[in-house]
């Protein structure tokens, strides 16, 4: 005897766990198999990038922090790194390639959900494959999947939440509302924008409920408010919790928004005057016009489900609104968002002749997006590396330098990981480094010769770097220059062996 149904005061016809809930019904093994299958192309690209020595800044930052926590066996040494979820997942096996692999799996899982949506849209299998390939095989998509793990993870979680949200709104399936809210709450720990997406979805509830032809009664109004609350509560709670933690431990509730990995605020745009912001609009307009697949999808929605056009437009404009507000929203993430919105918004049971048109639009959008991300230095570098198969000289040098540092004894290198995180990530160990999170760091900064054998400084630090600020100009007493590469210099205590001596 097993039962879960409880009679309710007002019984409405509910769908059984049928077609619209198929995603829910799959066992975790079935889900895992599909995710693994769809992850293969992303994994191939990710591992190829790793093989060629490419490491994005975002990944390096996460890996460095994970290595530190793993080495010290204390989570709190990372401070209040935001977003914590990518960090916690990388912590399971902190290596330079781990975020690339996890990002690929997140991308594979997203692709599987999109495949499921395309199947529901009624597109033939061959055209589905071509369409998916067309949107995946673009520089911006592959960079997002393999080199921007926090963005990819957040996007995946938002897409998962979106599907459950739809079930919640359409069928009042409470479990779906439960999951949608929780996933959005979780997504906040992957990316700040989950909060904004959560709020946006909550604000769209009245629109969606009107689309379902619900009567405007007192009961209906309460139902709408309730669904808004249920959608927004977990993500708001997550944001409040994280803000509280920041306030408790740092005194500043919004510290995390300035974290390098989160980079929510764009320092230049945040303080821009209104007229300057208006001047950005044409560029955003061009970006939107380049999303021909999204426009095609909008046309199909206008044709088949015209009342859904408004929510679609609201969601599609979201990346623009965020950037207009002065927040940072990376170009690959913005383009990935447009693409995913275009695909999941496709109406169900489309005629077959639509499929080739969508494929053509996807290819066109991919090509146009390639030109849009061409100005992004990191994307450009990555693209060059993976398309030519030639590693960057700077990556090879950095890796070789990091390998030398890795050989140093425990806590023997004084450095500030706000600058040297790439080297720590490349070294794949935080063992040799004495970092600001360590209790001895402050004392070592005052009297390095009593605490460390080496000092690693950045001759041109980009941000606050206590070690480089202090010793950037010259080595402290009893230390000499041991070697260096690029902007990095290593000082050696006079009695310590050189890190760069050939064995």
């Amino acid at each position, binding site marked *: *005897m*097993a*039962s*879960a*149904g*409880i*009679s*309710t*005061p*007002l019984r*409405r016809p*509910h*769908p*059984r*766990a049928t077609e619209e809930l198929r995603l*829910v019904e799959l066992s975790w093994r079935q889900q895992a198999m599909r995710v693994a299958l769809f992850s293969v192309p992303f994994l191939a690209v990710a591992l190829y990038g790793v093989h060629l020595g490419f490491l994005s800044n975002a990944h390096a930052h996460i890996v460095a922090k994970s290595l530190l926590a793993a080495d010290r066996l*204390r*989570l*709190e040494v990372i401070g209040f790194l935001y977003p914590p979820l990518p960090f916690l997942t990388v912590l399971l096996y902190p290596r330079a390639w781990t975020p690339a692999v996890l990002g690929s799996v997140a991308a594979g899982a997203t692709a599987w959900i999109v495949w499921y949506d395309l199947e529901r849209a009624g597109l033939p299998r061959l055209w589905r494959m071509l369409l998916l390939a067309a949107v995946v095989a673009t520089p911006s998509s592959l960079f997002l999947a393999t080199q921007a793990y926090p963005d990819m993870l957040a996007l995946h979680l938002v897409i998962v939440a979106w599907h459950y949200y739809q079930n919640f709104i359409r069928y*009042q*399936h*409470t*479990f779906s*509302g*439960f999951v949608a*809210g*929780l996933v959005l*709450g979780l997504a906040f720990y992957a990316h700040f924008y989950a909060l904004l997406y959560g709020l946006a979805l909550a604000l769209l509830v009245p629109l969606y409920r009107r689309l379902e032809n619900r009567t405007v009664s007192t*009961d209906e109004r*309460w*139902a709408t*408010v*309730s*669904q808004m*609350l*249920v959608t927004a*509560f*977990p993500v708001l*709670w*997550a944001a409040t*919790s994280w803000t*509280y*933690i920041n306030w*408790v431990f740092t005194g500043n509730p919004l510290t995390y928004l300035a974290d390098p990995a989160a980079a929510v605020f764009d320092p230049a745009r945040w303080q821009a005057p209104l007229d300057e912001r208006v001047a950005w609009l044409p560029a955003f307009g061009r970006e939107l016009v380049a999303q021909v697949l999204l426009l095609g999808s909008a046309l199909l929605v206008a044709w088949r489900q015209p009342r859904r056009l408004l929510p679609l437009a609201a969601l599609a404009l979201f990346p623009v609104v965020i950037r207009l507000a002065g927040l940072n929203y990376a170009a690959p993430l913005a383009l990935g968002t447009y693409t995913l919105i275009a695909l999941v918004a496709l109406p169900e049971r489309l005629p077959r002749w639509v499929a080739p048109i969508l494929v053509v639009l996807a290819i066109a959008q991919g090509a146009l997006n390639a030109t849009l991300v061409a100005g992004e230095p990191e994307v450009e570098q990555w693209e060059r590396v993976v398309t030519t198969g030639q590693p960057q000289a700077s990556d090879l040098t950095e890796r070789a330098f990091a390998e030398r540092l890795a050989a140093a004894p425990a806590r023997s290198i004084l450095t500030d990981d706000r600058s040297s995180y790439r080297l720590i990530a490349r070294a794949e160990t935080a063992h040799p480094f004495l970092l600001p999170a360590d209790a001895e760091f402050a004392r070592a900064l005052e009297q390095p010769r009593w605490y460390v054998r080496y000092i690693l400084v950045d001759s041109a630090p980009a941000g606050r770097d206590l070690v480089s600020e202090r010793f950037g100009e010259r080595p402290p007493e009893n230390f000499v220059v041991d070697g260096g590469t690029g902007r990095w210099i290593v000082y050696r205590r006079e009695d310590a062996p050189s890190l760069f001596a050939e064995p």
Partner: protein
Amino acid sequence: MFVRRAQARSEPEALRRRTRLGEALVDRGLLSPEQLERALEYQRRTGDRLGRILIALGYVRRQDLYRVLAGLWGHPFVDLLREPLDVQLARRFDPEELVRRRCFPLRRQGSEVLVATAEYPGRDLVEFVQSVLGPVEVRPLVTTEWDIDYAIRTVFRDVVLDRAALGLYFRNPEESARRVLVRWQKIALLGSLVAVLVGMALAPTLTGVLVSALVNGTLFLFVLFHFVVAMAGAQFEHVQAISDDEVRTLRDDELPMYTVLVPVYREANVVPHLIENLRRLDYPASKLEILLLIEEDDEETLAAAKAARPPETVTFIVVPNGAPKTKPKACNVGLLFARGQYLTIYDAEDRPDPDQLKKAVIAFRKGPPELVCVQAALNYYNATENLLTRLFTLEYSYWFDYVLTGLDRLRLPIPLGGTSNHFRVDRLRELGGWDPFNVTEDADLGIRAAAHGYRVGIINSTTWEEANTHVGNWIRQRSRWIKGYLQTVLVHTRHPLRLVRTAGWRNAFGFVLLIGGAPFAFLSLIPLWSLTLLWIVTRTHAFDLLFPPVVLYISLFNLLIGNGVMIYLGMLAGFKRRRYGLIPFALLNPFYWILHSIASYKAVWQLITKPFYWEKTRHGLSRYLDPAAPAASASD
């Protein structure tokens, strides 16, 4: 089909007797031919005995019917209320056997033994009496089953009281809460207390950290457990265990006799509502036995019940006065006199869904043989009465719609709710009935059933109750529940290894977290929140030592994620019930938990000072009980 044929073959004999009874009643002017026709039609539908049908339909008074039966059976009628009873003779018999056989040995008369019976006096009656008294001559007299019950209650008053109060204890003292703590529990509790005190004196930091880790770790597990169970419950919300079609296709002649126990105490004001609510049950009246259990010293309620002129299917059972004066004791008395195949309990103010009994019957038929009980959901009809009722309703919705369904899905032990639990009577008797010393006898019984290898299921039906409207009354009720939970944990962990062996690891772990976790969580709430508040206000570092990193993470998780999840569950429970107006109130749950915490301290104090004291909840306070008030469930 074959069954029907078999029934058809036996029909002429049965029909002949029924016809004779009906004709006899008509001949004596006690029944009109139209009424007889309607009763026979009813009989064809239900397959029940004509006499019961006539009484249930209110066509014939019970005593008149038995007088006529006495004539038909060829024996004199006897009114046991006016006859002297031979106590010594009667006490040679087992009262349970007398109840079952519906007979009572009245007295000796010469070489004869006069035996009153409410059944046709056949050879088996003679054999039964002779099996106890030896070769005596048995002279049957006819009486009503009410008279039989009355005589048994009168003669066996002390036996009934003993069995109801101490039956479980005598059968298996290890399962009774009569002893609050067994020896090793006393030693363990005292030892822990001493260890903490000594630790605080010798190594205060280490002791503080260990206590902090224990409290926070347990809370973490508690939250995690609730989350998993609620997720499991929510996932299948649209799966209806028993469909309306199944209920519709159920034939009346397939339905068994059903006993409904209604324990009442000082509730004269709700008796008329009770009678009205029970009238709404969709179950053949002739197969329904409603036992109104009234305490001996509660003359007010008895008078009100009589004045309400209930239908003949309602029987008053006066519960002998004696300690402990608890609801489970009254239920045990009711169980002794119950004649149904299944049994359920309703509180006086309950409004069960009309088809609930039928759903329970279907559930038992569909369920495995080890299914001993099914629990219907409870919810409140006066949810919108005030803030307390709103929060209480959200909590109940969460508990019955999510937690119990989740436990059912995960096949974990289900603690029964206060009412609307439906039992197989034979299994209930086998389990020893309710523990009168446990003040949440229902939760205890659910766990005991699991420990005996039985299962408890749930059905998709709701009983609408009255939510407490006053904080003081609420705290009284809640402190009793928490005290009962503590009693239940103490009873079932007396032999931890045996519990694990009989119930399994999962069940034992689930039981401890669910039943033990709730009082623990509420007891720790006020100290932990006070620490947090103190820290926020003063920013003192005095507590830093108590929270080393791992403990701090867990503590933060409990504070931030755990509380958020629990509030969220409350919201969704409201959503599922379509009580949209309640959902925003889930945000106030933390204040409601403070009331829980206060109640749990009271519960612990009472467990020490008055372990078996039954904190009576006052019912009938809701303004929705006023007939002029709008239907509450509809108004929500």
